[in-house]
């Protein structure tokens, strides 16, 4: 290990976090997991006391901080243009305690919204103005399968800074980008890493990885899906589906949207809303014709988009294994089973 690397690692005691965030709060708006109405979601916080550190993961993914479920793109008459959209970020932001899987999902969304041929100005501005402080996942759940889709509970990719709870009242902090380093340097009371902290980190990491019990074989899945587009399998897997939008709206990688106009007396707003491939209206044409006529076609589209079309287009699976769709599906449709069925088909 080079000497410079060590400087990028620090230890912070749990009780110090409040002070540190207070310092960061002067320049950044800090969003962190907070529990309200029995649900954990990311909210702007004033004090570290509001943070719910022991969360498994947030109910909704933090993707809506980059790609809001509903946002005004334009408004008419023209003099109004810009009034709605210029205030995307008032202040640079930190998302504090984002999970590695959700950080990975942002890298996947980047492929869609910040690619060579297309930069979505709204998304790009937020992405550039928001720093990601990760919290390694020490309690992966039964429905988690991040390690099967290229992630891991202690994965550091796409974060500016990562923290890991060592379980003894201390957090291991590692800066991964220059900006992350800047955040770390903001507080000089952070302590140096001792060898035993490093050992503790390795052990915690190993334990966390062991907890990811669900293993999916995704190798060759894309090719397999090419062959089974017309398979009767799709008749089976969609049967239970209620056709609601939970799996897509709670998904950290789903990104389909619809543009539409809304008007009041003063003006017209062109709005971008999330949309879901699970809704019949998603593809229905003005003539009334719908190319995806039933839940069968819609479920197939959802699976194909994640595990085949996206892979073909961007070289990666559009799933980070966070398990939200499994936990929240009212009829317990389990993507792990679907993948397994596809592989066995």
């Amino acid at each position: 290990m080079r000497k410079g690397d060590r400087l990028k690692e620090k230890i912070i005691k749990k009780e110090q976090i409040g002070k540190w965030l207070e310092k960061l709060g002067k320049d950044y708006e800090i969003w962190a997991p907070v529990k309200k109405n029995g649900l954990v979601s990311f909210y702007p916080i004033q004090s570290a006391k509001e943070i719910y550190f022991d969360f498994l993961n947030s109910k909704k993914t933090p993707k809506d901080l980059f790609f809001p479920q509903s946002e005004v793109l334009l408004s008419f008459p023209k003099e109004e243009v810009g009034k709605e959209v210029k205030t995307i970020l008032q202040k640079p932001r930190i998302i504090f305690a984002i999970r590695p899987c959700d950080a990975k999902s942002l890298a996947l969304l980047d492929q869609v919204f910040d690619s060579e041929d297309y930069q979505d100005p709204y998304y790009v501005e937020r992405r550039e103005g928001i720093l990601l402080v990760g919290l390694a996942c020490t309690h992966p759940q039964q429905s988690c399968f991040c390690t099967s889709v290229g992630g891991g509970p202690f994965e550091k990719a796409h974060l500016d800074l990562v923290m890991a709870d060592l379980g003894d009242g201390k957090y291991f902090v590692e800066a991964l980008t220059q900006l992350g380093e800047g955040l770390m340097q903001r507080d000089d009371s952070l302590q140096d890493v001792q060898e035993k902290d490093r050992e503790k980190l390795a052990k915690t990491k190993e334990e966390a990885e062991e907890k990811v019990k669900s293993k999916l074989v995704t190798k060759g899945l894309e090719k397999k899906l090419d062959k089974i587009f017309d398979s009767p399998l799709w008749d089976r897997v969609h049967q239970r589906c209620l056709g609601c939008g939970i799996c897509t709206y709670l998904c950290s990688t789903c990104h389909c949207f619809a543009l539409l106009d809304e008007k009041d007396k003063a003006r017209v707003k062109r709005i971008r809303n999330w949309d879901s491939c699970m809704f019949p209206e998603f593809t229905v044409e003005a003539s009334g014709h719908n190319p995806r006529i039933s839940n069968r076609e819609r479920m197939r589209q959802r699976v194909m988009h994640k595990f085949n079309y996206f892979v073909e287009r961007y070289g990666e699976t559009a799933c980070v294994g966070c398990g939200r769709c499994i936990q929240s599906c009212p009829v317990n449709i389990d993507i792990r089973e679907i993948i397994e069925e596809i592989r066995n088909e």
Partner: protein
Amino acid sequence: MQESEKELREVAKKLLLEKKVDLIIGYEEGTLPLRTRPIFIREADETKKLVWNFRCENNLCFYLKMAKERVGIVAKGCDIRSIIGLIKERQIKRENIFIIGVPCSGIIDRKKIEDILEGRELLEGIESDSQIILKGEGLEEKVDKDKLVHASCKSCKYRNPVLYDTLIGKEVSQGEGEEYSDVEEFASKSDNERWAYFNDEASRCIRCYACRNVCPACYCPQCFVDQSLPTWFGRTLHPSDTLIFHIIRTLHIAGRCVDCGACSRVCPMNIELRMLNKKAEKDVKELYHYEAGISLEELPPMATFKMDDPQEFIK
């Protein structure tokens, strides 16, 4: 295995073997602790997967809306009231449905388990006659089922099926407590408090429409919320859009809602608007002396007109 579960499997198997039905819709064990889920069985052998227990939380009538064959359905008291509604409103034909009625002492509200877990993960749940043992990392807790029963089930007066083709197990005692005490308590609050409550609930809505889709009374080919010409209201997340959706849905199912609770159980955002539906139910009961899903003959109040209907509201 419970006796009733055994009986259920035998009945279902027989129905398929004797070709009385083409399809059995029931429950099987799910992939997460304490979860069951809908299952569709066409082969007699598969009936061994059927389960019946405190955790059978889904209202399976959703699948009847689509079924074109002769279907045997495992149905609780409230589900059967939904079936009656669907028959009366000519969405399904009585002769195509074989009702396997199951007396039910109330079903689980998983949100209550989440409250007990306080953020910890449930790794295993073991159900016994009157208790559930919750197991997690550093956690083992026995909880009385009574404490986990869904609000709709607590005061349910129709725990024993009002209509069935065969009944599984023994009848159970009806729910206790005053049916509308919670509604009355809520109604006694000030306008502002009530409005704040509804706004707060609706503010969490993500418009996934799970509540609508699962609702047995919601079967419009195109829901008003999806119509674009005219567009009845906006599609944003503003409470003025989301709340109006829930309010109109309540009005649309007034006199038809059987308080099965499916809408609140499927909601991923813990939105609790049961009170609205309950209030509508109470009003219909008081104004029209009607309860939804009790008899096949009685005409639905919102679809009939009688000269002596209350009309004071027409000004």
